[in-house]
């Protein structure tokens, strides 16, 4: 058997996955933090202040990567869910459900930083800007998936139901986005989108790339940690869990 295929099969074994996640999560966290350290330092101290927005534009280096992560994680969650529903692979169920709280966290960061950035720009804490509105609806989708997963006693059934919701959500997300953009043009006229400047000077890009990479690495670490926790909860009562609990100091 091809070693990669064999490795995939091995990951499906709960004790093996537990060891794998316990081993690699710290590395992902540390690597992510290192890249983040550079990214944040450069965002705060190296990049010159924006001509129009002054220092507040530094919030972009948190806001944009978080927004992209909130979308990316949702798509990944739907992908894992699709595999879990079609092939009934337990590990994919666990990974899909572990994505949800992380995605929700990034969505909260996006909304909060968007709101904080908007205050000096628009003079108000909230604006029904299409992007923020879509982000808010995305948060409700995340919360719905997390709520549905925890409302069902049987973990496998809960993961499959929440996974189906994730797939429906990912299919509807473009529709929701389009409808909100249309609604916005209808009622608010042309909003000057503060976050729309895609022509960023080249000198301003490296911290953005760094933060994008850093948040992805952080996500991997967090995903492994949360998947490990869910794995342990599902396997509670099995011998290997007991043995491991007694071996480890914590």
């Amino acid at each position: 058997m091809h070693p990669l295929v064999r490795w995939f099969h091995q990951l499906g074994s709960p004790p093996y996955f537990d060891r794998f996640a316990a081993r690699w999560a710290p590395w992902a966290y540390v690597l992510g933090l290192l890249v983040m350290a550079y990214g944040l330092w450069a965002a705060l101290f190296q990049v010159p202040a924006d001509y129009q927005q002054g220092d507040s534009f530094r919030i972009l280096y948190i806001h944009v990567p978080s927004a992209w992560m909130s979308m990316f994680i949702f798509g990944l969650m739907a992908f894992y869910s699709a595999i879990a529903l079609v092939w009934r692979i337990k590990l994919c169920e666990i990974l899909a459900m572990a994505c949800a709280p992380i995605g929700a966290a990034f969505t909260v960061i996006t909304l909060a930083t968007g709101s904080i950035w908007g205050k000096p720009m628009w003079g108000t804490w909230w604006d029904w800007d299409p992007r923020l509105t879509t982000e808010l609806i995305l948060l409700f989708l995340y919360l719905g998936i997390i709520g549905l997963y925890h409302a069902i006693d049987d973990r496998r059934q809960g993961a499959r139901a929440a996974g189906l919701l994730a797939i429906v959500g990912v299919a509807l997300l473009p529709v929701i986005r389009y409808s909100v953009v249309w609604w916005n043009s209808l009622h608010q006229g042309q909003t000057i989108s503060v976050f729309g400047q895609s022509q960023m000077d080249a000198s301003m890009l490296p911290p953005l790339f760094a933060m994008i990479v850093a948040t992805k690495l952080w996500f991997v670490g967090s995903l492994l940690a949360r998947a490990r926790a869910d794995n342990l909860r599902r396997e509670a009562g099995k011998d290997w869990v007991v043995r491991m609990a007694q071996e480890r100091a914590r």
Partner: protein
Amino acid sequence: MSYLGYVVAAYGVFFVVLLWDFVAPRIDIARQLRAAKLRAARTTAARPAPDATLSRTESE
């Protein structure tokens, strides 16, 4: 206009949320392992030594 407060607030939110994201699974894992240890201790305590109850020849 001083943007310091806003930048601090935004970066602060970022740190706090990521901190929660880091701590929550660790607490969860620790709780699972502790529960497993306690469960194991309960079952070994509840299960008495085999010879004490099953053998009738001694007490009879």
